[in-house]
């Protein structure tokens, strides 16, 4: 069989997703504490603390600017952590995939189910950010907010594939530090979450434009604050490309790791 063939997920994908949902429901308390606690701390700490010195940013109050950016970055962080630490836990110490592969389910189903699950968790964490932001008055409850989950889902998919790629290559948990320090943290700082990308040097900005988070931030911020979107198709295309290429590479690499 050709190891590079395109992914062919089937019905068992949903069983993999459902398993993760059931485990998550079991551990709901700590999960939600994280989902709600983080945005509260960021918005109160940075938004109010830093906001005192900043009159406004990008034509809106700083708290609003920050909240609409964090919606997107939390989708990135959540999908990435799930795709690395949780997936690795299921793959190596818990041997969950070994158990699944003894059934008619295949590697393609596992990868597709995990990617869907990562995106689902992005949705939950971004929803928590939105709720906190509205409760703190950072965002107004506008109809545009209802479109934000679609952006978040796409963002989750765009980061899930790459995170699974890293998991498929990881010999141990420490390996994830490289991805955190070389990819996630720079993206978080440079993608317009905390300040507009227009202030970056032109070369850096051009580079950042090839990376997914800035597109997620632009879409989420535009929709959450009811501002006209600039080049929405381009944003969606970049995110969609990361999602598809990431899913393909993750599938190929997981086949290589699990079918020996």
């Amino acid at each position, binding site marked *: *069989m050709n190891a590079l063939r395109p992914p062919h997920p089937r*019905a*068992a994908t949903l*069983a*993999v997703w*459902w*398993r993760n949902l*059931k*485990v998550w429901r*079991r*551990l709901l308390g700590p999960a939600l504490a994280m989902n709600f606690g983080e945005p509260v701390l960021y918005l109160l700490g940075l938004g109010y603390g830093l906001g005192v010195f900043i009159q406004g940013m990008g034509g809106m109050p700083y708290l609003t600017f920050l909240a609409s950016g964090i919606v997107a970055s939390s989708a990135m962080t959540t999908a990435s952590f799930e795709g690395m630490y949780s997936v690795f836990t299921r793959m190596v110490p*818990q*041997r*969950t995939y*070994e*158990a*699944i*592969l*003894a*059934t*008619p*389910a*295949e590697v393609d189903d596992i990868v597709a189910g995990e990617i869907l699950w990562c995106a689902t968790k992005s949705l939950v964490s971004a929803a928590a950010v939105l709720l906190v932001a509205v409760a703190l008055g950072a965002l107004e409850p506008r109809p545009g907010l209802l479109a934000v989950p679609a952006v978040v889902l796409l963002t989750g998919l765009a980061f899930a594939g790459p995170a699974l790629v890293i998991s498929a290559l990881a010999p141990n948990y420490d390996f994830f530090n490289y991805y955190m320090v070389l990819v996630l943290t720079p993206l978080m700082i440079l993608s317009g979450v905390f300040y507009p990308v227009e202030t970056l040097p032109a070369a850096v900005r051009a580079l950042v434009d090839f990376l997914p988070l800035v597109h997620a931030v632009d879409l989420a911020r535009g929709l959450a604050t009811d501002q006209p979107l600039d080049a929405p198709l381009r944003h969606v295309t970049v995110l969609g490309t990361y999602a598809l290429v990431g899913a393909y590479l993750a599938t190929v690499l997981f086949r290589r790791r*699990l*079918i*020996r």
Partner: protein
Amino acid sequence: MTEPIVRAHALAKHYGALAAVAGIDFEIEPGICFGFLGPNGAGKTTTLRMCMGLSPPDGGRLEIFGLSLPRHGRRVRARMGVVPQADNLDPDFTVEENLRIYGRYFGLRRRILDTRIPALLEFAALAERAHARTEALSGGMKRRLTLARALINDPQLVVLDEPTTGLDPQARHLVWARLEQLRARGTTLLLTTHYMEEAERLCDRLVVMDHGSILDTGTPRELVNRHVEPEVVEIRNAPAHLEGHLLDGGCRIERVGSSLYCYTRRATALIEHLRDQPGLVFLHRPAGLEDVFLRLTGRELRDT
């Protein structure tokens, strides 16, 4: 003649320069318990992985239920149950949930699972534990749950990789009893083990494997008759001068550490001689699979 349920011909698997499985042939008749006996690193687990369609062979042919592997892995696994060597139950789920989610991977409907799960819990003697967290189970209970889980799809063939390794004697006997029950129902069992007692007790047919090759095939009795003399006398802390005497007496001698093993057709004279030696500790027993195993695979320590 019934068609074999598993058929392997010149089956081979290499990892780099290492031939994990070096071209083996075997056939398994339906309804029997077929054992792979061999030391660590003999190629048993690799053979099982190929049977599951999770390890593409580098050479030869492998068919299960008349379907070739790894091509028809999904269809084969739909009719197969697997008990892996290391527990891989879901620690966050209850006993019952572990069975239910596993059924989902097979695409089994809720209604089927609703009737099958209580029966399996009964079979595994876990009915009272249905809602216990899996993490809280003892090693023996986890093994039984893993066995119950392997039966969720009502398989024709159950593959078990060292099913009782690490269990205490009580737990091991309970697992054996369940496996005998399964075989009595007509389920074909394929197991690997390095416990002779397990192989002797459960297996109708065996292959002895080492270094990726099959050394011999047969029923436990055939293997014993073919490879070792019927009687064994083990002598602990045997003094050096004894060895010469035993050789004169027509024994085949093996020394392992400070013990001597004398293989012979008639041990009567030897035993009389040993009785005359005060302080000598010895044991007279019929030869078994362990003797075959040690004879075929050698006595050096395996550190793999």
